[in-house]
């Protein structure tokens, strides 16, 4: 076998340093590309060269979910049965009151179940991938929810997969309110010294309104991104940084992104679920992994659920 001689002479006729400078300039340009162009390049790489690795992770995640402890699953099932049993009377009361007010039935929220995959590469700390896409009704900005509350939203939906961000992303914002709807504010991510110390900050609460520790915050539906009523977190304490006549509060989120392996993605026609008054009312329906997108109830244009704000 011939002894290998390193390439020490550079490219003939074309100065190597010139190429290097050109590539360096290209890398700087890449850094400042518009978001849409960056997404296109990233999407192309994810769907081509890196696709086998993504598929391998999809398979492994599915296997790990199937291997989940049956006792844990049984506990979750029992909890759900209790919730369903307790809400039977509520549903009945709701139906009665709606008939008294001559309101038609609310459109139920539609979900698709999805598995979460984490890339684990530098710079991808606040993002994850889902194994469902536009074929199942997922669109850009679809909210992603775990059992306990809001996890994040879809950034980019492709045919069979989607890229999403969780609440630790620096650009995460959600309009929030207390459960009784008396106090409103804007929730954003507040990075901690370590990733595990990340938490949420509620801004924009009027100075005359105070929140005590333990108060639950949910999405308000304002802004049109998240439907009203998804649980976000609970107040820990008031933040020291006050801006003008406003208060800020630290929140402990209901959902830890590290625990997310299996989530639900809220789907529907463009803007439908965002017009709904509450995601938690009206009997959310989760489609199984193999289920096709369900038809939404027609003829509800005169209800409050579909009336644009």
């Amino acid at each position, binding site marked *: 076998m011939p002894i290998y001689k390193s390439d020490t002479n550079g490219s003939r006729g074309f100065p190597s340093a010139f190429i290097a400078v050109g*590539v360096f300039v290209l890398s*700087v340009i890449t*850094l400042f590309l518009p978001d849409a162009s960056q997404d296109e390049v*990233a999407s192309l790489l994810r769907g081509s060269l890196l696709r086998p690795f993504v598929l391998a992770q999809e398979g492994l995640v599915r296997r790990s979910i199937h291997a989940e402890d049956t006792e844990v699953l049984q506990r979750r099932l029992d909890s759900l049965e209790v919730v369903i049993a307790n809400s039977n009377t509520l549903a009945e009361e709701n139906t009665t009151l709606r008939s008294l007010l001559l309101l038609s039935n609310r459109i139920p929220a539609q979900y698709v179940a999805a598995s979460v995959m984490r890339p*684990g*590469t530098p710079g991808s700390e606040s993002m994850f991938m889902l194994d469902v896409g536009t074929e199942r009704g997922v669109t850009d900005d679809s909210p992603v929810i775990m059992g306990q509350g809001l996890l994040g939203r879809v950034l980019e939906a492709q045919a069979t997969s989607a890229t999403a*961000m969780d609440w630790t992303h620096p650009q995460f914002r959600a309009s929030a309110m207390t459960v009784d709807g008396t106090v409103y504010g804007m929730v954003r991510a507040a990075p901690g010294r370590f990733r595990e110390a990340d938490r949420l900050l509620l801004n924009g609460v009027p100075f005359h309104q105070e929140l005590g520790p333990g108060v639950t915050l949910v999405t308000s539906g304002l802004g049109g991104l998240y439907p009203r009523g998804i649980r976000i977190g609970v107040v820990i304490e008031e933040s020291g940084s006050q801006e003008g006549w406003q208060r800020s509060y630290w929140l402990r989120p209901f959902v830890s992104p590290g625990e997310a392996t299996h989530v639900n993605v809220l789907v529907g026609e463009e803007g439908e679920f965002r017009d709904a008054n509450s995601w938690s009312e009206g009997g959310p329906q989760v489609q199984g992994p193999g289920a096709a997108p369900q038809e939404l109830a027609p003829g509800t244009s005169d209800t409050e659920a579909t009336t644009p704000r």
Partner: protein
Amino acid sequence: MRTPARIWSVVGFLILLHFGLHLSLGLGESAPDLLVVALLIAAREVNIGRGAGLGFFLGLLDDAFSVLAFGANAFALTLVGMGGARTRDLFVGDSLLFLGSYLMLGKWMRDFLHWVAVGSDLRESFVETMLIQSPVSAAYAGLIGLIVIAISGLGWETIR
């Protein structure tokens, strides 16, 4: 014996292994940064232009899942590839000390350039990132790199 086939096979294997560990298995920081090890090994064998090109390509692959700062990895690995190729002219030798330092400094430099490129809004504190976390991951990558070089028999006699 150091042959082109062996060197590029090892480089290709390390790249595949990197994405296999980080992406397919989702190990994250638990797995070493084999991409920079592969680039540093390859950069010693090519000229500065090809080193930069390879670094840019590998960086783009790493950036495919980066919504925080797309291009930061490409920027960092381009410069690391250029620097790695340039070291051939500056440092001659294949001692254990040199190779260990080369791999560790290369990894630390990659982290530093990435830290610079992500911007002030996203970066964490310099002390925690560059003086605590990065040296540990650099030592990890350096150790794995030395083991790979020794096992694969890339011709660096002194560490076998």
